[in-house]
């Protein structure tokens, strides 16, 4: 494809295979390279310049973060709070699937119901869930339920909206085709509606996971007694910056792994599509 806009793009060339191998891995190499470079600079910074006494208190390096993280893993101080966070995450996510999936199907099939629910969905989807946290704390205290509700609200909407979209845009033509061969309503759902909706639902799940992780972190920062987020907040107040970063790394890595797995699932299920569904 001719690329007249980006004049610096690697031109098509007919040179030896060694060249094309580099071109294949170049994007990944550059990507990894920049991350590595960033880490290296960060690590080297205290050696390259003298930091003021104030800054030194908050400054940490990747190696210190890594060491702290390792320490936390080995001594077990990571696993317990992580477990609490994971429980809140898991329960909230499962609830959001349990509610979002059937509700999405229902709204997809009934225009009336959809119109009636729409204002509430729009309102809750646009609103930052954090706004409900003080209220939830009044109701549930600092236990696990405030967390679960925040996770639930965050994860519900991608699943609900995507399921609804997937069900609603089942191709009318395909439904007629299948009916013309004598399909019952159940067959129609099985043969057309569900396969059509599946990629949307999985994409919704991928979005929901990201939101759910964010929900756990945010809920634990302000409204919980236990959990990795709580550990991070407490560490921050004690200037244990490397612990904060260690926690951040854990959350980020877990989030990336989970969404990565879902993306793999998505790709497997989408072999019949010309291209993947967007964000």
């Amino acid at each position, binding site marked *: 494809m001719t690329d007249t*806009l980006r004049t610096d793009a690697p031109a098509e060339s007919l040179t030896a295979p060694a060249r094309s191998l580099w071109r294949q891995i170049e994007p990944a190499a550059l990507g990894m390279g920049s991350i590595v470079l960033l880490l290296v600079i960060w690590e080297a910074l205290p050696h390259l310049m003298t930091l003021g006494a104030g800054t030194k208190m908050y400054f940490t390096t990747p190696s210190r973060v890594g060491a702290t993280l390792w320490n936390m893993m080995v001594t077990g101080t990571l696993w317990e709070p992580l477990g609490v966070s994971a429980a809140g995450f898991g329960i909230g996510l499962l609830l959001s699937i349990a509610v979002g999936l059937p509700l999405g199907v229902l709204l997809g099939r009934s225009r009336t119901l959809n119109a*009636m629910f729409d204002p509430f969905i729009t309102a809750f989807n646009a609103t*930052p869930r954090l706004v409900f946290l*003080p209220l939830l704390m009044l109701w549930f205290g600092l236990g696990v339920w405030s967390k679960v509700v925040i996770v639930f609200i965050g994860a519900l909407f991608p699943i609900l909206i995507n399921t609804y979209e997937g069900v609603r845009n089942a191709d009318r033509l395909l439904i007629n085709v299948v009916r013309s061969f004598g399909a019952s309503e159940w067959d129609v759902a099985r043969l057309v509606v569900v396969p059509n909706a599946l990629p949307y639902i999985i994409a919704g799940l991928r979005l929901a996971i990201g939101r759910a992780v964010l929900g756990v972190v*945010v809920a634990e920062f302000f409204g919980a007694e236990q959990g990795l987020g709580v550990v991070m907040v407490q560490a921050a107040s004690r200037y244990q910056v490397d612990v904060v970063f260690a926690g951040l790394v854990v959350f980020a890595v877990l989030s990336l792994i989970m969404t990565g797995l879902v993306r793999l699932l998505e790709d497997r299920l989408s072999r019949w599509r010309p291209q993947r569904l967007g964000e």
Partner: protein
Amino acid sequence: MAQNVAQDTATDDAPHQSFAARHRNLLLGLTSVVLFFAAWQAVFLVVPFNKLFISKPDLIAAGLFDLIRSGALFRDLAVSAVPFFYGLVAATVVGVALGVVMGWRTRVGWALDPLMTVFYASPLVALSPLIVIFLGVGLAAKTLIIFFLSVFPFVFNAYAGVRAVDPLLINVVRSLGGREIDLYLKVIVPSVLPYVVAGARIAVGRALIGVLVGEFFAASEGIGYAIARFGDLFALDKMFACIIVIMVIAVALTEGIRWAERAAFPWRAGQ
């Protein structure tokens, strides 16, 4: 699909739909909202009402009027709005610039994309305690938090927008004698603009989270702080009132941008 109607000899009738039929969805939506509040109010006719635990629409409305009348609501909103706008504007400028550079110079895009993805996936909210400790409680910390939370939608969307510019259109304008400036004004900006506005829609939501995070952490004013304070005071009516105000603002901003997108860029069906 065919209805059993008596045979008529007329040809097609002129379309005549009642007001109700044409605005069906809107009316259904309004009806369900009204029903919801009515039910909320009415449920306390049978269920005992504990004002320390929950509130009712009439009390909430009264609380809201109170806050408006005393000026407290607008004061708090004004305080929250300042870092919101500063942070969002900074995020727009930096994010779009970065995204455009990434899209324009391919290798820069390759290099930074994974980095940006990692940042986007990390709960950067987690850094807010550090930011507050570093910068202290105040405008700077709040602005920075909002900036970090809302910059990435702009980066990614601008990036995608530049990459999506149709090379064919560039050729068309060039073939008609267009100069560089024409390319920018007639092709690139109109192509990228819808993506940036869509990014703004997402960024606004995240900026609102930033406002609340900043204010929950350690603030003495602002709408988020007000909610927390009313919670501490068990003034549930005013607390609900503030929550509803934020919901309305959030919806107004998001739907407003969505509406502007549809009006300004009707050729963009999805996203």
